[in-house]
């Protein structure tokens, strides 16, 4: 996702990471009980996990996250007016890149004189399922996170 941000920045496409709540709290990254702790976890996301996009932090009660569906790693794309044009219940950079290219193409087509009207479409996209990487992530959080994930999903 960092690469997508860099790739489209020159076309005035912004990209942010919105910090929500701990999906898999563990000994090293426990559940959030204060904004101070939330800011610290968000800074670690930048410094330890290499998120180079601007990180913005939601309220401690997750008001923004909850209003948009509370999925742990979803992606939305908004037009300048604030109207959402894409929403995905999981983040996949192929899917996001494909969508941005489509929307930028709409502007190009309009400039070429096409008359376009919006419509809604549903599509089933596909993400990488790398369980080794996922478990390495849980290890960073602490053994509790691994135990609870295994108990929930086997």
């Amino acid at each position, binding site marked *: 996702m960092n690469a997508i941000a860099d790739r489209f920045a020159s076309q005035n496409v912004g990209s942010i990471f919105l910090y929500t709540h701990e999906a898999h709290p563990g000994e090293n990254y426990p559940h959030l009980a204060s904004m101070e702790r939330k*800011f610290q976890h968000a800074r670690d996301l930048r410094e330890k996990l290499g998120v180079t996009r601007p990180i913005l932090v939601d309220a401690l009660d997750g008001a923004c996250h909850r209003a948009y569906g509370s999925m742990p*790693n979803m992606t939305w794309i908004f*037009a300048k007016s604030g109207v959402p044009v894409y929403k995905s219940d999981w983040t996949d950079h192929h899917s996001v890149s494909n969508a941005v290219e489509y929307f930028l193409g709409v502007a190009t087509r309009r400039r070429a004189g096409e008359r376009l009207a919006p419509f809604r479409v549903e599509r089933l996209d596909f993400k990488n399922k790398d369980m080794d990487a996922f478990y390495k992530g849980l290890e960073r959080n602490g053994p509790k996170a691994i135990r609870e994930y295994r108990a929930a999903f086997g």
Partner: protein
Amino acid sequence: MGDPELLASYNYDEFIPEKFMRWLNFTASPLLGEPSPDFPLWDLDGRATSLSATWSRYTYLIVEFGSFT
């Protein structure tokens, strides 16, 4: 932001279905193409901004939601 019960349940302390499933509500999220709600947000230095202040700066804004864990 002061409801202690909401703060505790949203920031659940255990990844168990009884605590996390209730929040997964994507099917009821805002519709594409319709005006969507705005919320206050903060940068890593604690400066206040908002979702609308951010989306209004760009032709399109990609927002990835997530956390360290």
